[in-house]
């Protein structure tokens, strides 16, 4: 190694200040992380392939089984992926622009339904996904326009109205959503190869996550991205510096809707069925929870928040299973009420994070990194 890793943030040029990754090592770490993620479905794929194509030595199978996280694990990662994309959109709105939306799940649903609807009209799924993002953007801007002229609180209330109006629309618009029965759809396919299993769909989501997160990171380096942050930090000063507040608030809302739409489309083609009831206000609150827990105004935090929100119910479930049948379980009737327990934990976690760690997991992660950077001389 010719150059040592700097022990701090020593940028000497504007060019360096604008780089996506602070140091070469962070860039390497991120690339390595993505590469490792890309390897994850492989053990499962190989095992299935060899099982179909004939025998596999037991010892090899045992070896691969160690790294095989299974369909369930991959399914969780896929969920983290599409929820993370939608949460990132919300974070651009809430964390970077300082506007609040309580209707994100409705826009997520618009994306899911429009992708399924477009696919029914003969478009290939991989075209439907970005198109549905654009459709959601249009819907988002329609609802964002009246409120974009006003301050954050009013957007919160307008999006609350949007949540109920869109939910009502879903239940009403048979042609678009399939009504109460819901709408089925197909997995994406490319050159005749169908991404119809967790092992293969994982790659679709991974590519989408990388694209969307790099796009967001780049957005924040542009004039527009800095304008959004200026609007958040002090809207009067921003306006004096020539930033058109209404334009940037609407833009931010449009971007948030676009991300929600993409996330929703990925959700639709993963489950291959979209139900009308899925996109309720509780889901919207979960998105807000992801953003708060992950860290307001942090790009990587959005993914951490989504991961937290996906893993949390699993942990609650595991905890409940561990004491199942015991006296505590009998007294509290955990088995039948596990979904309420999950909601309670989510609500409590949101409050606890707001009170004790308002900067979210992203901040905690920075602290952990800072601690190890100078270990053992951190103090």
């Amino acid at each position, binding site marked *: 190694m010719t150059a040592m890793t700097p022990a701090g943030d020593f940028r000497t040029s504007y060019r360096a200040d604008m780089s996506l990754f602070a140091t070469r090592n962070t860039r390497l770490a991120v690339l390595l992380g993505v590469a490792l993620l890309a390897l994850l479905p492989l053990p499962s794929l190989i095992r299935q392939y060899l099982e179909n194509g004939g025998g596999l030595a037991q010892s090899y199978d045992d070896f691969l089984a160690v790294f095989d996280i299974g369909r369930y694990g991959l399914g969780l990662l896929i969920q983290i992926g599409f929820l993370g994309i939608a949460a990132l959109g919300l974070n651009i709105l*809430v964390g970077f622009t*300082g506007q609040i939306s309580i209707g994100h799940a409705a826009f997520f649903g618009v994306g899911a339904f429009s992708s399924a609807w477009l696919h029914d009209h003969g478009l290939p799924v991989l075209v439907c996904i970005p198109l549905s993002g654009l459709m959601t953007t249009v819907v988002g801007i329609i609802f964002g326009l009246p409120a974009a002229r*006003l301050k954050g609180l009013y957007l919160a209330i307008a999006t609350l109205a*949007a949540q109920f109006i869109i939910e*009502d629309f879903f239940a009403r618009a048979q042609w678009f959503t399939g009504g109460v029965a819901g709408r089925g759809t197909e997995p994406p396919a490319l050159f005749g190869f169908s991404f119809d299993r967790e092992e293969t769909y994982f790659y679709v989501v991974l590519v989408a996550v990388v694209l969307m997160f790099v796009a967001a990171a780049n957005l924040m380096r542009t004039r527009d991205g800095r304008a959004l942050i200026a609007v958040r930090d002090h809207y009067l000063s921003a306006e004096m510096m020539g930033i058109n507040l209404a334009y940037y*608030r609407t833009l931010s809302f449009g971007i948030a809707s676009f991300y929600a739409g993409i996330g929703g489309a990925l959700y639709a083609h993963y489950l291959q069925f979209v139900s009308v009831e899925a996109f309720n206000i509780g889901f919207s609150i979960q998105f807000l929870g992801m953003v708060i827990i992950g860290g307001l105004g942090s790009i990587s935090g959005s993914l951490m928040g989504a991961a937290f929100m996906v893993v949390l119910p699993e942990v609650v479930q595991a905890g409940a299973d561990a004491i199942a049948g015991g006296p505590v379980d009998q007294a509290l009737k955990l088995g039948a009420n596990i979904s309420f327990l999950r909601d*309670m934990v989510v*609500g409590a976690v949101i409050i606890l994070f707001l009170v004790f760690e308002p900067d979210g997991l992203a901040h905690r992660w920075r602290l952990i990194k800072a601690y190890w950077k100078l270990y053992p001389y951190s103090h």
Partner: protein
Amino acid sequence: MDWNLLLPLLLNGLIVGALYGVVAMSFVLIYKASQVVNFAQGEFLLVGAWVCWYFLTEWHLPFWAGFLFTMAFMTLFGIILQVVVLRPLIGEPVISVIMATIGLGMFFQALMKWIFGVFARPFPPIFATERVELLGLQVQPVYLMSLAISVVIMAAFAWFFTASKHGLAMRATAFDQQVAQSLGISVPKVFAMSWAISALVSSVAGVVVGAVNGVSSALSFYGIKVFPAVILGGLDSIVGAVLGGIIVGLLENLAQYVDATWLNWGNMYAIAPFYALILILLVKPYGLFGTKNIERV
């Protein structure tokens, strides 16, 4: 025009609207005093109604005793929420405070479902059930009672804020915190008191609705219906909140009538206030009586 259908709907709108007005009033109280937008207002109704239900059916208390216990409980509940959750968040951005109340709402809704189940449970009969004749309409006395209670609460609010010492202290705090402090008003106490009163008044509305329709988690929807009402009335006006609530109640039932007679879309009852909300935000965002200091951009 089908008056036989319209008149009961309008009366129903007035009764429900008065209840919305009461809840909206307690929402505005918190907003005015502590600048907190309370998304957990509906859960106050829910918790209050369930607690009262519990006292009445499990402890077999007479109604007045159960009601008094509920009011005492809700006062404590409001104070504890303010001190434990909202006080540490003073000075944080609006988003954090809003999120905290949303988290509270989620928490208590799930908790109530866990403890009391998801199905609606009826209150033990409190008022006489014979119907009364009013303006040629058959009306259940429960509804009249609920209207009367709403009016009493509103009158009590009016008295509290114009004549009582604490009410004046609260208005002073809402007007200017620093000046209020310099006059010897304890701002933290005022904050706690506003939450206590808000929880108390909302829970009365919750008990009334519960006595009429049975208690279920649908009660918390009142907390969401509050938003069209307060935006219509102006976010920081108590009179506006009452009027907004009544208008939203009437609007719902009119939408129901229009829907049933001509449109046949279904569900307009629940959704019309939100269309109205978007419209008001477009045309007159500070509402009927709100302070016109919203910066438009």
